[in-house]
Structure formats: C-alpha cells, structure tokens
C-alpha cells in the first residue's frame, strides 16, 4: 500500500510503500541509492511481496530527494538521510532492517538487520565519477576523477544525472558503514547476476524470492 510517512526535513511527508498486517515482525527496507535505486526498485518491491507471503510486514520509505520526492537532490546530505532512516525505523516500529547496497551507510545501527551487498561511499562515488569522466570524454572534455572529486567537495557536482551538493559528496567520500548488529550478505549468497549492474533495469523473481527467504530465516 502506498502512503506517506513524516520524513524529517523541510520537504514534509514523503511516500512510503507498506505491507502492514500488524504482525510482530516489521522490516524496514532502506532503498538502494541513486541510479542503483532505480535499477533495484522492482526487485526491492518484489522482495516485499515475497516477505508478505511469508507473513512478514515490511516498509519502504522514500527519503527526501529520492524516488518520488519533490525535494531537490542538490539540497540533500548523507547525514540528513541517516537521520531520516532513524526516524523511519521509529515511525514504522521496525524490528529488523534490510539495507540494499549503499543504503547500508544509512543503517541506524541499533536494530538487527541484514546488509545486502553493501557498498561504501567511496564505491558509490567511484562508479559515478568514472561514468562522468567517460561522458565528458565523449563530449570532448578531458576530465579526471580526482579533480572532479575535489571540485565536487567544494562546489557540488552533477554525477550520474544527479545534482549532488558539496556536503553530500564530502560525506560520501568519507562514509563508512556504521557499526551495528547487522550482518552482510554477498550477492553470491543470492545467486544470479547482480541486478544493479544491468545496463537496462531488469528483474529476477528467483533472486527476490531467495533474499526474502534469507531475511525470513534471519528474523526467525
């Protein structure tokens, strides 16, 4: 069910997808970030459906600037998203947290959970900077990752189609996974090709089913 949740910040409530039957097990799913968020959206929603079939409730909130949010991405910071993740955990009464790729950086750390194929901040920036260098070169502009990153830390930067502010880039460059009770889950545990690598967004029902089964086992 699509509804809103009281996301902290100037933009006001944001959308959230909920499968809520009032069960005791309530999983907060933090969506993958940036381009990977688009590529893994279908997969993530299918994981929610598979969890629902197992009688497990789950919640997928939008953070400001992401997905359907009308807040400008340029104004967002990683620290603000971390605060929003904490607020979402409280609002939805989460008993378990599933992070997807770089959303492991937003893990509030006080609730047990699983980090699916976690990606750190440097990893996020690396691919986006590399893509920027490649598209610059196609346009006849000679750029390099280091100089772009330094410029981005001072002035913000358009990466992967997203206007990222200076604070976001600085915080991503330094971001490490928060300490928490969560365990990491590699793609090899799911099997199949990583869907975030796909040039065209795609879906794999078997992978969604497998992740739901692993999460279901983890929550007992």
């Amino acid at each position, binding site marked *: 069910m699509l509804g809103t949740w009281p996301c902290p910040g100037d933009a006001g409530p944001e959308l959230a997808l909920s499968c809520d039957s009032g069960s005791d097990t309530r999983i907060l799913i933090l969506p993958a970030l940036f381009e990977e968020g688009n590529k893994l959206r279908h997969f993530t929603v299918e994981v929610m459906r598979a969890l629902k079939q197992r009688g497990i409730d789950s919640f997928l909130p939008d953070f400001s600037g992401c997905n359907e949010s009308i807040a400008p991405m340029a104004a967002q910071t990683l620290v603000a998203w971390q605060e929003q993740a904490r607020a979402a955990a409280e609002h939805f009464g989460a008993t378990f947290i599933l992070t997807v790729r770089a959303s492991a950086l937003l893990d509030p750390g006080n609730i047990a959970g699983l980090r699916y194929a976690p990606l750190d901040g440097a990893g996020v920036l690396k691919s986006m900077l590399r893509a920027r260098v490649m*598209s610059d070169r196609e346009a006849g502009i000679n750029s390099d990752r280091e100089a772009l990153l330094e410029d981005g830390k001072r002035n913000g930067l358009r990466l992967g189609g997203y206007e990222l502010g200076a604070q976001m880039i600085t915080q991503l460059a330094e971001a490490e996974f928060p300490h928490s009770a969560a365990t990491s889950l590699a793609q090899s545990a799911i099997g199949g090709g990583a869907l975030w690598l796909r040039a*065209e967004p795609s879906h794999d029902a078997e992978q969604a089913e497998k992740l739901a089964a692993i999460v279901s086992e983890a929550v007992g």
Partner: protein
Amino acid sequence: MATNLPVKIDKAEETEAVLRQVLADVLGLAPEQVAELDEDSGLFGHLPELDSMAVAGLLTEIEDRLDILIEDDDVDGEMLETFGGLLAFVTDKRQTD
C-alpha cells in the same frame, strides 16, 4: 619458465571467464549468448544500452573481481569497442599489476 606455464594458462582462462560473466551480468545475457561473444563482438558504441554509466559499473566490477586497478587514462574507445579489445587490455593489466 616452463613450470609457470600451466599457471599462466589458468590465469588467462580465468580472466576470460570473469570478463564473460561480468558482461553477462551487465547485458543480461544468457549463457549461450555469452559463449557466442568473440574477439570482434562489438561493445561500447555498438550496443545502445551500454552507456557510460553501464561501462563504469562494468569496469568497477572487473576491478573488484580481478583485483586490478583501471586508471582513467587506460580507458579509451579502442579498448572498449570489442570483446577482444577489452580482453587484451584486462589480460595485459593482470600481467603487469
């Protein structure tokens, strides 16, 4: 040295296998389609879905799986244009790293 030969062959085979697997993951190819990739199979510039973001992901994944470092200056049209070009580049990179 002759004693190193089998190891080198294994490494070359591994490089090609990893490359085929990463391309399969990026392009969503079935195993039989991956097996059909040959030296002249066109990549960047030939496949519309293979844009700069997809290639960036592909290069990063190759780095992670083969434990090599690909610099910005290494990346050019020739290296990315065909499967053979990319394979030659990665094979060379693994030998020199």
